[in-house]
């Protein structure tokens, strides 16, 4: 049997009633697809069940890469390829020169960590020059908070009631579509 799905936008003028509404929606087993807001709302991620972002772990790995690259570069250039003997202080081994290499090792660590993380962030959020605006309603960058739901018939009715009762300024059904059974089967697996 084919199922009807509905995309619903619940628009709020303030984050406090929106958080209340989301709590109620979650309590009645409704999944929040996404929330669009003009600014970060604290506590929202855990409320809608978002896992913590792992981007900081990426930054750490990029930083280690930068550290390794700088070490390799300086070892090759200053120790292996062309060792210097300045004032009777030769640098035949890397560890002889470590103090002088620390500043650049540090800078390279920061460079790679920062740029690697920024690139990951841009790609992961698909923030690309000229990309299409991702917010479904332009007011969400100004002062409106939008709860984005994608639900079946029963849940949609329930959600609309909860949203209206909890102070949503607008509850709009944006579109409805039909999902063929084979996809539903796959989804429930």
């Amino acid at each position: 049997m084919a199922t009807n799905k509905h995309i619903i936008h619940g628009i709020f003028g303030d984050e406090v009633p929106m958080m209340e509404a989301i709590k109620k929606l979650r309590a009645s087993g409704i999944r929040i697809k996404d929330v669009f807001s003009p600014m970060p709302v604290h506590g929202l991620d855990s409320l809608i069940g978002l896992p913590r972002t792992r981007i900081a772990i990426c930054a750490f790995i990029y930083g280690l890469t930068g550290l390794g690259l700088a070490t390799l570069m300086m070892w090759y250039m200053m120790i292996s390829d062309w060792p210097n003997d300045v004032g009777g202080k030769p640098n035949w081994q890397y560890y002889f020169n470590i103090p002088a290499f620390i500043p650049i090792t540090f800078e390279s660590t920061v460079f790679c960590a920062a740029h690697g993380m920024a690139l990951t962030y841009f790609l992961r959020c698909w923030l690309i020059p000229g990309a299409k605006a991702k917010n479904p309603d332009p007011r969400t960058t100004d002062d409106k908070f939008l709860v984005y739901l994608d639900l079946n018939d029963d849940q949609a009715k329930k959600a609309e009631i909860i949203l209206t009762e909890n102070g949503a300024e607008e509850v709009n059904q944006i579109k409805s579509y039909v999902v063929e059974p084979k996809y539903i089967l796959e989804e429930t697996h």
Partner: protein
Amino acid sequence: MHAESEIRIPLILGNKSYRQITDDIIAPIEGKAAKGWYILTSICALCFLWGILCLSYTIGVGVGAWGSNNGVDWAWDITNFVWWIGIGHAGTLISAVLLLFRQKWRMGINRSAEAMTIFAVMCAAIFVLLHTGRPWLDYMLFPLPNQFGSLWPNFNSPLLWDVFAVSTYFTVSLVFWYIGLIPDFAMIRDRVIKPWQKKMYSFLSFGWGGSARHWSRFEEVSLVLAGISTPLVFSVHSIVSFDFATSVVPGWHTTIFPPYFVAGAVFSGFAMVLTLMLVVRKIYKLESYITIKHIEYMNIVIIVTGSIVGVAYLTELFVAWYSGVEWEQYAFLNRATGPLAWSYWIMMGCNVVSPQLFWFKKIRTSIIATFILSIVVNIGMWFERFVIIVTTLCRTYVPSSWNTYSPSFIDIGIFVGTIGMFGTFFLLFSRFFPVIAQAELKTILKSSGESQKKSASTHAHH
């Protein structure tokens, strides 16, 4: 919602809503520019053009066009370089260190302070790139494989550390600034009506939508970037000071230099932020967001860092005397009583005495006094670098190589040009970019807005 103590003074004045913040921040972008903006921009652009002319002349005939000579081989070039880099430091300090300390007052000023950082580092870069003498060979500063066999730059040299430090600092600050700008560009994109503006801001906003996932990544990225920018900013000015401290020139060869330079950088940077902010808040009527309290906080930072700088000056004198090294002692005697003593006393007056005036609440909350003192501090900090570089190099070890110094016409032209460039870029920024991080500002409206605080306290007392 995060509640805040009642006795904390609000950071957003007036009866503001989220919509009101949007309107206020977008006003300079949507509206027509004031006459004052055109006048200031024209003056700065003319200075900038003059600088380009002098710069081209230098490239044409070589650094002989400068006042630098055989003894004084670093002069205005490095003085200006260190001055500009130092000014840049306040931006990172405000956005990174104050973020780590969760200081909410940073939100009114961080955007423009970061812009200032970027433009200041660009000005600084002009001098280092030019002072090499043959700027078209500047790629040789980087460790690139080349046709000269194994000719690598010397990784033991602080001058090379500087290349890495400044380029890392510039690019990381730029990325940090831009990541913060994206949500604000998206706000402008969704508001403006003119087609060319719509197109420009859609391009600049990278398709930002403000979904919960993106905001959670945004916050994590900001926090981690702040975490790594903080040691970065300290390392950059420490490394700049190593250019001097690792040499064997009396007056330069001191271990106090890194902390002393960092404090001086923050000191001059905050002064420059104040100079710019006082103009910006006036032109764009942002008095509700950049309040007297913000100005007072910045002045307090100036007292602290100014006093650190003062202690460093006195420590230098003490160490020179206590070391028993005649060369070292003479270097400082020469600074205070030699032919360029006037510059030493300008430095002492502007950097040690003038910030102490901020101990008076009347002075540190007065806009006019702050504006004047912020300029005085920057003059003082320019003279600090002049004293360290020129006065020292005028009288080094061998009296036969003693020399005097006076800047050439071209020296002055390039310096004025960088001030013009800085001003032009900053004015363009303030006209076309959101000068206040409005998305972040909206997060503190509930806890630090004036009317919101009032209504919260009346609720608590009923």
